[in-house]
């Protein structure tokens, strides 16, 4: 606690100094620091207070694990990349734009003063004096609710907000390590394949395997798995009464489990068909064969009628049904 006070005490004169400085100096010292600058409440105020002849882009974020801000973590590296490449882009700082990052932990006051519930939020402060001054709109705000998580989109936004100034492009550093790793991995795989070919080939060439794969694929797709994948539907949903409802109401939506049930039904039906068509005629013993026929026929009937009943649930007006369901 005491330490903190000390730190604060130590900071005070600094900020006071910063407060006294002319915007020119403030910008220069801000620009001297590695971008984006790590800010706290004081330095934030110092940097963003009027009058200023420069623009400031501040990312208000919440990196601490407690807040579980997924987007913050996704965007942080992008943000640093943007700041670095921008500052590298105009050494002479013609764009007069400083980047700062304010974490919630360092900037509670700021967050409260702006009543920010969500993070991250990006603020862009226009100059209050100089050629690019925007007295009508001193501050722009970029919300990340529209699924922005790449540096490029933010860069476009900045470029729009800062007209007739240089807009250094985002340059992504080439990751040699990654390239090397991928190449080695590829080579490794190739060698492995060449070595293991004699053992793998029979498996690959196994017909049952392929049959299984393609059947599973077909069953998955025809039972609407892609729909789950694209629409991100819930696996199951509880009905009002604490129970679990396996089938979503309505023709145009479904649950994850539901599709699996349907896929299973299809599978059973298909399997019954296959058995009737291929297995049964190959049975040498008449009695067991007729039993098998009856069994499979029964299975077919029951499953199909159940499928129909399920479909009647989905599609209200559907008139057809089979016994027993």
């Amino acid at each position, binding site marked *: 606690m005491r330490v903190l006070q000390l730190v604060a005490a130590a900071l005070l004169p600094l900020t006071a100094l910063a407060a006294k400085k002319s915007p020119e100096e403030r910008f220069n010292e801000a620009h001297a620091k590695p971008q984006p600058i790590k800010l706290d409440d004081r330095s934030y105020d110092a940097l963003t207070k009027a009058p200023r002849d420069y623009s400031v882009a501040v990312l208000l974020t919440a990196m601490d694990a407690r807040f579980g801000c997924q987007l913050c973590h996704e965007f942080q590296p992008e943000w640093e990349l943007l700041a670095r490449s921008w500052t590298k882009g105009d050494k002479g700082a013609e764009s007069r734009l400083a980047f700062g990052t304010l974490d919630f932990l360092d900037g509670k006051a700021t967050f409260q003063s702006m009543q920010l519930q969500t993070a991250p939020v990006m603020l862009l402060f226009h100059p209050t004096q100089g050629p690019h001054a925007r007295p009508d709109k001193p501050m722009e705000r970029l919300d990340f609710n529209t699924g922005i998580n790449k540096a490029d989109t933010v860069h476009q936004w900045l470029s729009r907000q800062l007209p007739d100034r240089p807009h250094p492009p985002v340059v992504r550093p080439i990751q040699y390590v990654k390239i090397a790793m991928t190449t080695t991995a590829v080579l490794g795989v190739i060698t492995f394949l060449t070595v293991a070919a004699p053992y793998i080939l029979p498996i690959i*060439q196994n017909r049952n395997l392929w049959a299984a794969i393609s059947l599973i694929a077909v069953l998955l797709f025809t039972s609407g798995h892609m729909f789950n994948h694209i629409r991100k539907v819930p696996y199951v949903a509880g009905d009002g009464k604490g129970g679990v409802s396996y089938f979503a109401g309505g*023709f145009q939506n479904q649950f994850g489990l539901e599709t699996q049930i349907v896929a299973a039904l299809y599978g059973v039906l298909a399997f019954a*068909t*296959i058995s009737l068509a291929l297995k049964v005629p*190959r049975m040498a013993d008449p009695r067991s064969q007729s039993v098998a*026929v009856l069994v499979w026929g029964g299975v077919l009937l029951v499953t199909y009628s159940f499928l129909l009943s399920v479909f009647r649930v989905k599609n209200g007006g559907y008139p057809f049904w089979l016994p027993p369901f």
Partner: protein
Amino acid sequence: MAVDTAVPGADFFFKGESGRNTRGLLRLLILVTIAAAAIAARLFSVIRFESIIHEFDPWFNFRATKYLVNHGFYKFWDWFDDRTWHPLGRVTGGTLYPGLMVTSGVIYHLLRFLTLPVDIRNICVLLAPAFSGLTAWASYLLTSEMSDSPSAGLLAAVFMGITPGYISRSVAGSYDNEAIAIFLLVFTFFLWIKAVKQGSIMWGALCALFYGYMVSAWGGYVFITNLLPLHAFVLICMGRFSARLYVAFTTWYALGTLASMQIPFVGFLPIRNSDHMSALGVFGLMQLVGFAEYIRHQLPSKQFQTLLRAMVLVVFGLAFGGLVLLTVSGVVAPWSGRFYSLWDTGYAKIHIPIIASVSEHQPTAWPAFFFDLNMLIWLFPAGVYMCFRNLKDEQVFIVIYAVLASYFAGVMVRLMLTLTPIVCVAAAMALSQILDQFLVASQPSEPTESTKANGNANGNADIKDKLAAAIPESLRSTKAPLVGIYSYLSKSVITGAVTAYLLLFVLHCTWVTSNAYSSPSVVLASRLPDGSQHIIDDYREAYYWLRQNTKEDAKVMSWWDYGYQIGGMADRPTLVDNNTWNNTHIATVGKAMSSREEVSYPIMRQHEVDYVLVVFGGLLGYSGDDINKFLWMVRIAEGIWPDEVKERDFFTARGEYRVDDEATPTMRNSLMYKMSYYNYNSLFPAGQATDRVRGSKLPAQGPELSTLEEAFTSENWIIRIYKVKDLDNLGRSHQEAVGFEKGNKRKKAGKRRGPRTLRVD
């Protein structure tokens, strides 16, 4: 059904020659009846309503066809349409797939030649059913190539004829490219299989020919362009490369590509666009492998062969790398958006809202599959499985097609269409297998008989042996020798069951067709409380109003969905239509619709808009109206003017999309909102106005319009047309003018605050 499914085993019971003839005759009869059934099943809408073109795109096709018939082919080819996309116009001749129009044009002139003057409209309306008959026949041919059972083909034809998955796009009046495309698809595949099996240049050339026809008819030709190479590629990987394959593929590729490049709209895509690169790559690979094979035959040295194989791989790798390089450098265009969005399913929603906005580009939920294919959907996997029983080239094709198509169908609703044929084929193979087993009159009793029956029952035993030799392990379910069914009881049970299912299937198809797929969305039918049918004809009412009450060249602004209909029925120029080739122009309309009047008016003036048309379902509870599509307009506009139109502003603080008192100011000031609800209160007692679609009570004070005036509102308020006012004669803003009309005084300039503004002149 029982008649025609005579198993080969039965050949001995009939006298060979005559038996074959009778069966052939029966086949013919059955196919004809199937075609008749297929056509009949598609006539619901004509009988219920009238011979009318359906939905949206067909209206353009119909208009284009009329142009073709009136002005001849060359005029059609060079057609510059100045009545759409005002003021840009559209180079229509070069930007459509002419196959459909040309087909019906040819039919029209043929009938003329036969002195049968049939109205072009009726030809267009009935084209799809007619071709569905052909499709049934084509699928019969295809399946007969696949399976050695004589009944499979006929079953496939029946399924293809009446399955809703295909009917959905081919009822009478849905005059769309798919109408003929599906026939071409199936027939091209049949020719391909034929070519691969026989390795004959003729069949390959025929395949290429019909591929060209397909290209001229439907954008979906890309499916063929990629499926055939894939098939060939897989065959090569399976070590099934053969001279037959080589001949078939090279013939098809060379001729087919040339043919496809004759279509102006396709032009040089086949060599510039990634969608077509797989075919090119496989073509190259084919040459390499062919060369390697040739060498191998010449000199059988082991090391040399390995070297050769290595070389082939390397060259192929290099070629592939080069292709990638070309793509990156931009010589070869990357995947087209629509095609790409199939793989990266999230792509369209972010990058191409227009594509994402189309309802038929949404993913498919399982009920849709069952709805469209009923019991075929579970016979389908069985059929695919049976293809593995004796895996020849054509069966491989079935498997690949099955997997791919079911993926596509899962991603996009409309691609159910490409899935349907293969489902029919596979299901027919499965079902025919059962029937063949259970409908044999003969009864295996003694082992000798059974072996005999076995020998006949699968005539291709020798081939199977070869395969068994060639491939390490055959399918588990087919290891044991075939015996046959002993008891009549089980035969009759299964036969009865299958017959029942088939009947149920027929019922289902009829029901679905008549309930779901037979309404021409131009005319809506609703049931009154007493059960009688009530026709809602607002669309045509409004379009004919436009046709009869507006200037010949009055520009009509509406959301693009209605562009084709306005062009076709009202015959008025439109700003945007369903051929969404110019995103910016559509975004402009979106901006005009979603901005304040002061912003929209200059846009409308600039584009010389005379009338604005909106679709409003609030009174009737018609959910497909513009307020529900509104967010797409906003999104598309935001894509171009991110700073002026913001989707966020149309949602309340709680992120809801509302039209009542809680609606955001942006929403309530947007032109679309105003046009939809203008004067709507007057229908209800004060404060009672409710929107039956959104199910919300509207603000007591209705919106005011100053730059537009209501020109027409259809009977059920589904379509509302507004006239764009001219500039005020006295140079006032429209708000002021309206205010003056209302008689409220304008405050004197003298009373203004601040420094006096001096006049300079």
